[in-house]
């Protein structure tokens, strides 16, 4: 209770930094790391998933994206980082501006600065934890050997041990990924994202299918790492407490629109209820 209250105070302090004046240089640079204008997306032969989405996400923010099943959270995340082509509007992410889809060169530059964590982690189950973490380097320059720890650069192997230590799993480096518990596996997935030294960390329901204690633990790790390393964190969640406790800002999607987009301290549980009910 006390901790949650202090957290809330801290967040209140953060949101008083001039968010409303993007031109003013803030402590982390006030230029948005993600900006969209009139962003819309529909799948081929489908109705619009969302339309007219304007977002400005600053580098020092941890953003929670909420909305009911099928509201378009995963779709929006993928559009923002160029993994899915959008249908209309403009996107600027990490300095790369594009309509619809980024060019191949832009996509490559984007990927090099982004880490991903998905629900159900997507680890290679029959490989060691160490190999899985080093595979996070794939797609970076000089990474063609990074598909197995035995072939990787010594420096990268050591880096992998460091990030494993950050998620408190250094002692599991030799274990096979399918021997881990759900929470441990998700921590490996976080390490795999961290080893890219990303500026932006995208996490789609990182705590889904974890028990409440482990889920909070995972969110705490995300939150701490994002602050320590100055990484922008954008995550989706169906747990409203996770949205409130580990973000600086909450964006809610409903019926294809941004329902609200506000500093976390200004969002009440009643506001959030409105996201899920007519």
């Amino acid at each position: 209770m006390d901790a949650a209250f202090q957290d809330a105070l801290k967040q209140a302090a953060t949101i008083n930094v001039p968010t409303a004046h993007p031109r003013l240089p803030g402590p982390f640079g006030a230029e948005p790391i993600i900006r969209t204008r009139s962003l819309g997306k529909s799948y081929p032969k489908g109705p619009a998933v969302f339309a007219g989405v304007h977002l400005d996400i600053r580098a020092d923010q941890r953003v929670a994206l909420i909305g009911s099943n099928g509201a378009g959270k995963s779709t929006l995340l993928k559009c923002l980082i160029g993994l899915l082509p959008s249908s209309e509007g403009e996107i600027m992410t990490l300095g790369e501006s594009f309509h619809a889809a980024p060019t191949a060169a832009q996509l490559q530059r984007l990927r090099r600065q982004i880490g991903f964590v998905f629900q159900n982690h997507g680890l290679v189950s029959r490989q060691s934890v160490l190999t899985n973490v080093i595979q996070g380097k794939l797609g970076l320059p000089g990474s063609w050997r990074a598909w197995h720890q035995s072939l990787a650069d010594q420096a990268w192997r050591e880096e992998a041990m460091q990030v494993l230590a950050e998620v408190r799993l250094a002692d599991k480096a030799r274990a096979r990924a399918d021997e881990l518990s759900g929470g441990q596996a998700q921590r490996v997935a976080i390490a795999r994202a961290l080893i890219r030294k990303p500026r932006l960390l995208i996490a789609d329901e990182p705590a889904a299918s974890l028990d409440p204690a482990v889920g909070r633990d995972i969110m705490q790790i995300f939150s701490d790492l994002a602050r320590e390393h100055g990484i922008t964190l954008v995550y989706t969640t169906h747990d409203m407490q996770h949205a409130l406790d580990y973000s600086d800002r909450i964006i809610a999607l409903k019926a294809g629109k941004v329902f609200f987009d506000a500093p976390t301290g200004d969002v009440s549980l009643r506001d959030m209820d409105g996201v899920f009910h007519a």
Partner: protein
Amino acid sequence: MVSSMHSPSLPARLPSISPISFTLLVVVAAAFLASIGQVAPSPERLAAGAPRMAELVGRMMPPNTDPAFMQRMFWRIVETFQIALVGTVFGVIISLPTAWFAARGISPLGPFRHLVKAIISLFRTVPDLVWALLFVSTLGLGAVAGTMTIVVDTIGFCGRFFAESMEEADKKPQEALQAIGANRVAVLCGAILPDVMPSLINSSLFALEKAVRASVVLGLVGAGGIGQELKVAFDLFQYRNASAIILAIFAIVLVMEFFTDRLRAKFQ
């Protein structure tokens, strides 16, 4: 209370048969009866053949154990295993990229993967003795033709099963690696192959088993191995040699199945 309209009717004891199935059944039965007279042995023929069979078995006994012959046979058995082993290993190595090119959703070739699939099917559906005849007439008599036959055979077998396991590999890690920009080779080596390794090993062991059985008979058409010795024995009416060779083949297949079963259990 319960109206008869809504009460579910009792299912019939036998499933009803459609007119098409019934016609098909009649056609197959007719074909079977008509064929019996032409290809199945008549009782008289069987009766006449039985004493000759007994006589042949009698002439086969006892199997030849002459040291010089045993030694020649030993080296032929070694050659048989060599053909099977070398052929299977090369076949498996070639099957890996071939299966990758053929696998749906994974192949780097796009629609051209169907071409690769067709080649694998061709390799598999043409019987091994036909391949052996082809290689004997192009590469000459001997073990090299046998090895080539096993290579082609193995690609036909492993190419198909490797491709199927690759298609069924867990998609999540593949997507996770693709999302960060890993290239196709890295996704193959880093995510797909580790995931399907047990099934690859399993298929390869079956391929080895198949190869030993195949290489035993390849000699009949002159492609090396113990089969060649068997053909010579029958051609020269050396039935005691033939029986020794047949026993040796039996032993070879048993021993090999014992070891491949052990290996399979180990890699499960």
